[in-house]
């Protein structure tokens, strides 16, 4: 009971300490790391079903507030906190501009979100997390762009939370309670009578969740924000914070179980069907936009919300396999996105830029980082036997089992497209020619190396033993009243159409690799040549004043595709929001003209207002 409170109090205390000592960067980072570790230690003590309640005399009512641990929340808690431990451990030596106290405040808020049993504390924590992350992003590059990024995020996020606020009060006025469980069960009970009502209320919530997760059409803030936020904060933002929306969706998705009599498509109630399409479109939009990115952080921002689209599409089905697949992908996304962003952060910290076309050839200098990144993108592309394959594979099966072939094809396209942009990033950052600028670049510190080795290990381990994650997920699925998928051992993934033994695949791949290296060893010897010794059509590089930068092809890598995806790029949701903002600003500048600074105009206004009142009074007289 007290350890539930500790999950909130420890980060807050840590945050205060970190805020006080923020001038001493190393101490600040140590505090941040140890806070995460302590929180994790408290978490170990916590079991499903633990609860803690208190009441708050507010608004003249006595509001029951509480914390409670459900299978879903403990899953989410482990994910966020364990990832935070890893990230802060990595940050011990990296010079990131991240303000640790804001990160810790975000942690407290996120713990609270996952444990809240009432909408009041849910909203409180949600907003707390919102502004802590906004301020954290402000600390990014300290440029006008960084400001715009954070402001864009802030606007979307505040708009979303106001939408949620409206939803909360519409709901609590119906039930007279803030308790999540009571409200949801109330919604279930009126579902058959007023389905439109319920959908209206729930969609108010969904707007907030979609904004936070960056689901189409609210994805536009993601690249700006990720591109500009502090390097150390991006992994947390993309791996952990994007999952809050998914958690929110899962609060309300059980509603759809009682929706079976609503008209649907292919046996799927249409609200679910719509969400699946939102997810699929997000996946595609993210991938397509990532094609053309040159900024590495932005590229992986697109990648991030594209993967969120996968997760949403899967959980929106709300079938056992769909839910399992979605949660499994959420976990895998946490891992591989963490691996990718941590390596990206490591590279950025060494190279000092984020434009990929100016990097290249870094594998010679940072081999371990390179390998981590390789394993990360292999996982992201869904290649067996790494983590990431299983969940993608299950998502496809979940989708096809409903006959959603178009959505599945879209998702598959997104998956292929993700392979494309991952390769492009891989090439542009690590492969190709190493510029002389980076001759002095060193591999990251020992702590960074430990983190990376750990991440590689985790990606492979959870790839071949998915059961360690699928077991808790099954208990979550069970807690939603669905029948969990059958389990047959830690190495099996059981899908709808087929099951796969990951260990046997792993062994086959390993044996094949052994054979491959044997073949490599027995065939004729090779000669190691430097990167300058390259095919140049007979031209001698030195005579030609050829520099490695000139011999690196990575700018506009997919230029021919411009023509093909131009129609996609024309749909500018971004432009809509920007145009909306501009119109508001225009409106503001017109309204401002009322206050001219001339006292007579003001008097006219006042007298005019009075006359209108009098006329109005006259009419009703």
């Amino acid at each position: 009971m007290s350890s539930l409170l500790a999950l909130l109090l420890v980060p807050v205390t840590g945050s205060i300490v970190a805020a006080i000592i923020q001038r001493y960067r190393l101490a600040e980072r140590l505090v941040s790391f140890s806070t995460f570790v302590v929180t994790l230690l408290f978490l170990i003590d916590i079991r499903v079903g633990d609860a803690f309640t208190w009441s708050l005399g507010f608004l003249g009512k006595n509001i029951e507030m509480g914390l409670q641990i459900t299978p879903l929340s403990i899953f989410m808690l482990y994910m966020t906190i364990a990832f935070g431990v890893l990230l802060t451990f990595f940050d011990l030596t990296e010079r990131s501009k991240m303000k640790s106290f804001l990160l810790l405040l975000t942690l407290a808020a996120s713990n609270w979100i996952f444990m809240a049993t009432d909408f009041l504390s849910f909203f409180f924590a949600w907003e707390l997390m919102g502004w802590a992350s906004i301020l954290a992003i402000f600390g990014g590059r300290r440029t006008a762009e960084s400001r715009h990024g954070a402001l864009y995020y802030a606007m979307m996020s505040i708009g979303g939370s106001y939408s949620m606020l409206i939803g909360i009060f519409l709901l609590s006025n119906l039930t007279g309670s803030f308790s999540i469980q009571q409200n949801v069960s109330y919604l279930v009970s009126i579902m058959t009578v007023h389905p439109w009502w319920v959908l209206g209320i729930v969609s108010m919530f969904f707007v907030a969740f979609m904004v936070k997760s960056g689901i189409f059409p609210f994805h536009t803030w993601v690249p700006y924000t990720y591109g500009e936020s502090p390097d150390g904060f991006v992994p947390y933002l993309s791996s952990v914070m994007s999952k809050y929306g998914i958690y929110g969706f899962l609060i309300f998705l059980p509603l759809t179980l009682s929706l079976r009599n609503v008209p649907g498509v292919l046996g799927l109630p249409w609200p679910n069907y719509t969400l699946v399409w939102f997810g699929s479109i997000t996946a595609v939009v993210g991938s397509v936009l990532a094609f053309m990115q040159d900024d590495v952080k932005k590229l992986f921002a697109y990648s991030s919300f594209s993967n969120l689209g996968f997760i949403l599409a899967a959980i929106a089905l709300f079938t056992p396999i769909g839910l399992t697949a979605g949660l499994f992908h959420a976990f895998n996304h946490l891992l591989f996105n963490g691996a990718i962003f941590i390596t990206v952060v490591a590279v950025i910290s060494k190279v000092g830029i984020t434009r990929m076309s100016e990097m290249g050839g870094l594998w010679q200098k940072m081999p371990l980082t390179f390998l981590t990144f390789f394993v990360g993108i292999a996982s992201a592309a869904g290649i067996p036997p790494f983590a990431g394959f299983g969940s993608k594979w299950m998502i496809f099966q979940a989708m096809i089992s409903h006959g959603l072939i178009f959505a599945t094809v879209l998702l598959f396209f997104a998956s292929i497209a993700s392979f494309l942009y991952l390769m492009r990033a891989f090439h542009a950052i690590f492969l190709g020619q190493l510029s002389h600028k980076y001759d002095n670049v060193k591999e990251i510190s020992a702590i960074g190396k430990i983190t990376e080795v750990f991440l590689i290990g985790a990606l492979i381990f959870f790839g071949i033993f998915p059961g360690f994650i699928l077991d808790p997920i099954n208990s979550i699925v069970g807690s939603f009243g669905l029948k969990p998928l059958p389990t047959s051992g830690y190495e099996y993934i059981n899908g709808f159409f087929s099951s796969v033994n990951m260990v046997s695949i792993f062994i086959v791949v390993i044996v094949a690799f052994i054979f491959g290296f044997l073949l490599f060893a027995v065939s004729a010897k090779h000669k190691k040549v430097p990167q300058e010794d390259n095919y140049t059509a007979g031209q001698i590089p030195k005579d030609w004043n050829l520099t490695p930068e000139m011999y690196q092809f990575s700018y506009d890598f997919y230029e021919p595709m411009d023509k093909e995806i131009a129609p996609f790029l024309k749909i500018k949701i971004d432009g809509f929001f920007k145009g909306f903002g501009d119109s508001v600003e225009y409106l503001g500048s017109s309204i401002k003209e009322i206050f001219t600074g001339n006292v007579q105009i003001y008097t006219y206004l006042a007298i005019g207002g009075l006359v209108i009142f009098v006329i109005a009074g006259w009419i009703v007289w």
Partner: protein
Amino acid sequence: MIDFLQNWIYLTGAMALVGIGLYIVLTNTNILRIIVGLNIVDSGTNLFIVTIAWHPKSVMPIYTATNNLVVDGHVVAADPLPQSLVLTAIVIGLGTTALALAIAVKIYQKYGTLDVRKIKEEDK
């Protein structure tokens, strides 16, 4: 309760003063004229206050042997309270006017004009 509407001449006068005052405030750009306008509005208000205190048939509100304050069960005495109210109002109006004039003097010192439109231009 005083049926003050019987004093319609005075009431019209009060309203007219307020209207004239407001008209001056709205149409004149000179600060001094605006102050005069405000003063006229004040006068209108004061007249109104005094007017509501009596009607042509009312008597003074002092009890003497010949002065019947109550006729046929109705109070016919004039209301003494507005007299005190109007004093206060006059004093306050005076204070406001004095301050306004002081500000006007300062404005003329700083801006060199008393035209509100020119002051607005100068501020920009």
